[in-house]
């Protein structure tokens, strides 16, 4: 009996010793990444090469995104969401700003634009000083962190119909959409990011995240043109509670919503003036459906 026990103890001990490195095997290492240095990006007629972006990544990006692209650079510890979001974990291959449908990979152009645009309400500045070639190389470098690009192709960019003329009716219709798809639950009835769900929002990694405040004057994360705003709610911001509404909103309604959101945003706009002339009131969360 004692021999039997000793034998099992030995076996368990050996299993424990061999199992110890398993968690680290599951982690991406620099050696794994070296095998992906051939990753390319294609921006117009420029081809970016991951191997050429190692030095600029180390100079400009590694402090936040970390040597392994996992968003665990030395500055990450000082960033406290929701006021200051944590750096993106490139290994997951999940990106907020895409022209492609929710759940799909972004295009190279999407990543290229994101680098130059930067992100308000985060530590990511506008890296507009790079040459186009350097940015294309960095796009390839970002891609090489995630195995998703090896097995998946980027989604097909959504089609954005031409922007219609703004009319008071469209702005009122946009307010109805705002009420119907319950934007106010997170963004608040005045767009001040104080809806009933706002305090409870977390991203896919369980970190607190703030809804966009339309009234404080900062740029929407994925661009501030009307087309950018249209794109944001039709593709969603992957990894965040902001879903894609492409199944719930028709393209025409989406433009109406863009016009209504402009009435909430800080810079004075023709939409804002039209709303003022209309005497447009904020949505009433308690109003019956269709009776705003």
């Amino acid at each position: 009996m004692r021999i039997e026990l000793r034998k099992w103890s030995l076996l368990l001990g050996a299993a424990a010793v061999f199992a110890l490195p398993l968690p680290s095997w599951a982690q991406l290492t620099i050696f794994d990444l070296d095998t992906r240095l051939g990753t390319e990006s294609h921006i117009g007629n420029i081809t970016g090469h991951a191997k050429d972006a190692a030095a600029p990544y180390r100079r400009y990006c590694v402090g936040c995104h970390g040597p392994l692209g996992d968003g665990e650079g030395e500055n990450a510890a000082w960033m406290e969401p929701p006021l200051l979001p944590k750096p993106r974990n490139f290994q997951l291959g999940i990106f907020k700003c895409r022209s492609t449908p929710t759940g799909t990979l972004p295009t190279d152009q999407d990543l290229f634009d994101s680098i130059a645009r930067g992100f308000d309400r985060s530590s990511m500045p506008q890296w507009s000083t790079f040459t186009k070639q350097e940015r294309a190389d960095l796009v390839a470098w970002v891609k090489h962190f995630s195995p998703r690009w090896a097995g998946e192709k980027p989604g097909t960019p959504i089609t954005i119909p031409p922007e219609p003329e703004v009319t008071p009716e469209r702005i009122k219709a946009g307010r109805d959409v705002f009420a119907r798809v319950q934007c106010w639950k997170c963004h608040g009835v005045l767009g001040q990011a104080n809806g009933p769900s706002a305090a409870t929002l977390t991203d896919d990694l369980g970190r607190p995240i703030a809804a966009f405040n339309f009234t404080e004057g900062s740029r929407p994360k994925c661009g501030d043109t009307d087309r950018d705003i249209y794109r944001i709610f039709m593709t969603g911001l992957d990894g965040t509670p902001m879903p894609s509404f492409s199944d719930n909103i028709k393209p025409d309604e989406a433009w109406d919503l863009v016009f209504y959101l402009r009435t909430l945003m800080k810079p004075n706009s023709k939409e804002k003036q039209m709303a003022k002339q209309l005497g447009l009131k904020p949505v009433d969360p308690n109003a019956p459906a269709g009776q705003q």
Partner: protein
Amino acid sequence: MRVLRHFHLRSISRFATSFVAVALVLASVVLTCSQPANALPAFARKYGLRCSACHESWPMLNYFGQKFKDNGYQLMNDRDAPIWQNPSYWPVTFRITPIWHRVSTGKVEVDTYAGGAATGGSAIQRISTSGFDLSGLDFHTGGVLEKNISFYLLPSSDPTGAFHFEQVFGRLDNLWGSSWLNIKLGRFELDNLLSEKRILTLTGNGGIYQTYHFIPVGDGNIFGQIGDNQFGLEYMGHSWDDRTRISASLLSSNDGNVNLSTSANAYTGFFAGSQAFDTGRLGVQRVGFYAMVGEAATYYLTSGGVPLGGSGISNKGFSREGFVGQFYFGQHIDLQVVTQHGSDNAWFGQGYGNAILSDGNGGTTATCSSPTPGCPLNNVPGTALPAGSRAPSWNGVTAEGHYVYSPQLIFIGRFEAERMSQQATPGTASNLGNITTYTIGYRYNPFMTSRAGFAWHNEYNWLHQDGTGPTLGLTSANVNTSEILLGFDFDF
């Protein structure tokens, strides 16, 4: 014999192998044992960026850092205004440099002694001295008071702890939402692309750009030094991506000295412009120009023989102009070039203008109360220029190259030449005062974070100047000076 030779060859081979192995290990320790690779840490802390994001090597700016500075120390996002900062954030950085250096100056005239008594004669000899030393202390504090209103305040001490204000200014940024409208008022560095205040070298002669400070031997113009911080008002504009930059400054011709004591009622203009080009994998190349055109006093009224501060009269003109180039050859090599053509009015060439000088700490001191015996006759209103006096002129070039192994390790090499093209006094040796100097060195940052900067600094400078040594026979000796410096350069 063959056995011996074979043994000898094997020993050499073994020694060579060991030597190469040790060298490789040392090189690898220096080059690779570094943590992943940092500057004004106050800015880095504010934005959570490494020093390397803005600095080619701290303190020299890279293109992104230049854009950050041009935007008024703002990244142009919603986090610029201090209201977004953690209340414990303190926009202050301290910088100091403990060093060991050895300075060797050739051809110094020294008294001679014999039998314990002075002979009354002199000899020429080289003086070399070495020891541990300290730089001054800089308190950098700067940033944004409110979105688009920035400031910089730099109290700076000499190694004895005597303080002055090296840099003080407020800046209105992006007026009416345009990056083309920025106004700065105070004491600031001129818009030099190759910034002397961000120089990578620390020795006495290598720690400045000779081209920025050159004046002919005997010249009294202390006002046209483009490397010194100056009092004035600067307009600056730039494109959104900083590819195009222009600036124009109106400066007091007082060499940055306080209390209007030097050269009152005289003004200087400084103009600069540059354009950058995207050259793909080579990087961003920039070419530009600068011009400084001004007037400054040549006389001061006196009281009891002592020049009176603020009483400068009889303004005369001077100019400095040149081209600037910043050329990048990929991710590791770059070359920075500045040229200069300088010219001073003949009165400056004869030594007029410097009767009141900087005391080195931002203040001034009367240096000459002519006609006190021993003083040059450079402050007697109404005197005439010596016959044949001419406007001195010269040409200079600075070429500084860098090999950036990584953001943590940079090798520096610089060559400067200043050549007189016309001396103020006919018959003066045409090369009198010419300067040739080179500087080599490296800076190694063992760590790089957004919290502090630390560099191990090694540097050697050699400077040669024609004809400024003691007179030997009929001609003055050329002087060679060299300095080697090792130290820690850190800020936090």
